């Protein structure tokens, strides 16, 4: 199996065109408070620089708009409202025409295609002050056109928010078909927006909870290939896989990479008791991190690799704990009502996302790494399994509906609890893990 984007090379160069840098705070989105009024943005079709590129002009603009609107921070000014049309990339904009239709940001672009290589350039305009705020050029293979559109949107997002973007990223997840009593599950990977779905395993064996390596090239997951749950390592480019070392008579699951990409922390069940262990990806150096008769699972590293947050029922119910990466200095961080599980450390390091069960409802929430400032973002019959966007601003999770026809689907929500959206997948979907930004 060969993934389309495996060989995709993107070049990123600053446009040489003179840019008038923005003056004191013209266009700026503050995303920490939660955006109530999205910024109106106009994205005219990108101008094709030659006949072969014609098919991409509108498509790239559409993906850029979809990304920005999807973030909840922007709303689209529809093309039908435009007063002046953009027909040449280098002709200055009539900013008054864009202000008249309340477009605060305008993104113009051009696309050329030659020898199977696409070149995309864009400019971000502040229509209010009448200035170009940013401009960049990207190159890739023809098949990489969506990624270039995502990179344009990432650059715009970064320029206007001061935060990194997250659109040029992928999601590995479990695709689900079949009835509730006999669910067929297989690993799949897609772009963050649900495009380019590819399957990484067959559906003969149950597969659970994949996680990306720090650079997105490998995936750890759990499979029942042998009849017993066991941790596997899969190469995303080739889809080849191998089991990690495991003693007979044990179960292993809940694997996560350390930020160094060489160490794995996971749950190992021996004689009914589940503890956390670490080992090298090569299979050597097995080391026990917790020794307790309770359940210890769902580990997640801090971005600096020094600490691990995990769940344990040592207090009598599922709660969250943080320990040093060598297993020392364990302290409990969750103290609210209900049960807490599936903690995931934000890539920014500042927050921990979790699943909370309380009075028969499930919630996705976030708290500071010391357990303070708990905030619940969602509520439903069954929400679980949060995963962070690469910039730590958005959380994707699984929502399952109740009853005999219950179905799992992916949703995203931002960390202020706004902008709850379903993520489009071909079938049922669960256990999403968000990749880092692609290079």
């Amino acid at each position: 199996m060969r993934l389309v984007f495996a060989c995709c090379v993107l070049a990123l160069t600053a446009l040489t065109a003179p840019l008038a840098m923005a003056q004191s705070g013209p266009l700026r989105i503050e995303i920490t408070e939660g955006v109530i009024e999205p910024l109106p943005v106009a994205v005219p079709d990108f101008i094709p620089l030659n006949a072969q590129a014609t098919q991409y002009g509108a498509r790239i603009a559409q993906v850029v708009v979809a990304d920005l609107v999807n973030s909840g921070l922007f709303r689209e000014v529809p093309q039908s409202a435009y007063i002046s049309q953009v027909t040449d990339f280098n002709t200055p904009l009539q900013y008054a025409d864009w202000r008249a239709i309340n477009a605060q940001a305008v993104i113009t672009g051009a696309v050329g295609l030659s020898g199977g290589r696409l070149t995309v350039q864009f400019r971000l305009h502040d229509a209010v002050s009448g200035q170009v705020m940013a401009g960049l050029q990207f190159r890739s293979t023809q098949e990489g056109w969506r990624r270039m559109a995502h990179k344009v949107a990432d650059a715009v997002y970064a320029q206007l928010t001061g935060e990194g973007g997250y659109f040029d990223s992928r999601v590995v997840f479990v695709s689900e078909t079949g009835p509730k009593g006999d669910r067929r599950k297989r690993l799949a990977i897609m772009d963050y927006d649900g495009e380019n779905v590819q399957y990484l395993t067959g559906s003969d064996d149950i597969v659970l909870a994949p996680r990306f390596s720090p650079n997105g090239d490998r995936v750890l997951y759990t499979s029942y290939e042998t009849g017993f749950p066991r941790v596997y390592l899969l190469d995303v480019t080739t889809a080849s896989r191998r089991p990690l070392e495991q003693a007979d008579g044990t179960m292993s699951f809940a694997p996560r990479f350390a930020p160094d990409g060489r160490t794995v922390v996971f749950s190992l069940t021996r004689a009914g008791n589940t503890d956390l262990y670490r080992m090298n990806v090569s299979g050597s150096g097995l080391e026990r991190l917790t020794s307790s008769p309770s359940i210890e699972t769902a580990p997640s590293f801090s971005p600096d690799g020094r600490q691990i947050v995990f769940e344990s029922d040592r207090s009598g119910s599922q709660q969250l704990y943080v320990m040093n990466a060598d297993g020392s200095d364990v302290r409990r961080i969750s103290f609210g009502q209900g049960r807490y599980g599936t903690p995931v450390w934000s890539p920014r390091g500042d927050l921990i996302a979790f699943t909370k069960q309380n009075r028969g409802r499930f919630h996705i929430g976030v708290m500071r790494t010391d357990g303070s400032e708990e905030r619940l973002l969602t509520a439903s019959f069954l929400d679980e399994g949060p995963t962070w966007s690469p910039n730590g601003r958005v959380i994707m999770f699984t929502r399952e509906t109740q009853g005999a026809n219950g179905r799992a689907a992916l949703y995203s929500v931002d960390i202020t609890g706004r902008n709850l959206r379903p993520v489009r997948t071909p079938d049922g979907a669960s256990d999403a893990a968000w990749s880092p930004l692609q290079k």
Partner: protein
Amino acid sequence: MNIAGKLAVAAALIALGACSNVTNPIGGGAGGAGGIGGDASNPTSPAYFQQVVGDRVLFEVDQSSLTSTAQSILQGQADWMIANPSYTAIIQGHADEQGTREYNLALGARRANAVREFLIERGIAGNRLQVVSFGKERPLEICSAESCYAQNRRAVTVLASDLTG
């Protein structure tokens, strides 16, 4: 012969060899509801074990301790396995859907292990008893109500005939 053919032959040779781990599950399956295994009126049949002795025990919410009802069923399972020493078993632990996925895997393992320890205590050799957890992945009943959840919080003893004889 092509590569696939050679592989098939190799696999067949492995299966015929004296491989101590090769077992042949009878009935059960992940859901534990299969109906095969002979005639339930024959006390030495797996069907008798499944239907008359009882192949499963149920658990309280988030618990793995054995109720008195469960203990009496498991005593029957132990007696049957002592009387039918050619069988081994895989004990499958399950959880209801009200829990996070990985926690439920660990909880199912606890339940399966509670059954295994009980059977060992009642005289079954540990090497006849394997455990596996399916967490909430294989519910038997699919409604989202306690009547279904109660049936799903289970440990099922699935018999296997040991091919090594």
